[in-house]
């Protein structure tokens, strides 16, 4: 049971900060809670011997995407509690439906054929960048290229959307 302690700590932080993200009144606090969630998830990844994914998770999510969110929040000056809360009934029904989804998910997972995955995580071989890179550039090279095209399209799209429309006005 002693071995579980890091896992339990990280899980606790993950759930707590995720709830914080959802419930914080101020969107800036939401962003910061989410960053903490990503840190805790990176901790999980390290426990699972996936160091590369752990660091990339930090760089991409916490270092880039969340900075983007924070940037937009600050740019639009949305940091006041401008959001009117949903009515009570709505809140309760949201909690109910999410909870029901949880029950369904957990129940179906319980019955899933988990006999394939017994024991603990494999000793740190797969998570190493060498193995991941090999898989990425042999087996998954086509999806990789397609994802780069997706990235390019997203970049061009974001720039086009963000541009001020001068010609039409």
């Amino acid at each position, binding site marked *: 049971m002693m071995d579980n302690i890091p896992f339990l700590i990280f899980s606790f932080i993950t759930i707590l900060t995720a709830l914080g993200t*959802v419930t914080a009144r101020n969107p800036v606090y939401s962003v910061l809670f*989410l960053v903490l969630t990503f840190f805790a998830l990176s901790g*999980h*990844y390290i426990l699972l011997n*996936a160091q*590369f994914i752990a660091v990339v998770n930090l760089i991409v999510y916490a270092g880039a995407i969340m900075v983007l*969110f924070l940037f937009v929040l600050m740019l639009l000056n949305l940091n006041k509690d401008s959001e009117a809360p949903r009515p009570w009934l709505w809140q309760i029904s949201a909690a109910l439906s999410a909870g029901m989804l949880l029950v369904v998910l*957990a129940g179906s997972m319980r019955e899933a054929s988990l006999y394939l995955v017994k024991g603990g995580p494999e000793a740190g071989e797969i998570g190493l960048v060498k193995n991941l890179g090999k898989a990425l550039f042999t087996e998954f090279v086509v999806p990789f290229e397609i994802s780069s095209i997706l*990235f390019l*399209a997203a970049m061009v799209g974001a720039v086009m959307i963000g541009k001020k429309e001068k010609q039409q006005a």
Partner: protein
Amino acid sequence: MNVPIDQYIYLSSLLFCIGVFGVLLRRNAIVVLMCIELMLNAVNLLFVSLSSYMGDASGQIFVFFIMVVAAAEASVGLAILVMVYRNTRSVDIGFLDKLRK
């Protein structure tokens, strides 16, 4: 370390449901986007844990692709939100169903 795989599954289910709860609960479109990121991360956690337990790298590669999609989604989504804010001075998702009426 000897955490059974079930616990990771429960954890990521819980995380996913928290994300769903947030999407249902919040009206601020930016926070809703963040809740979607949370759901994506729940899936990531599941992928990584399974990949690690089964000794197969494909799961982690998938996480990689999910991150790509998440980054693309965040950049385009935020660009759209900035434009919406410019036009309506609000990022309330309730504001956007005007087209329906």
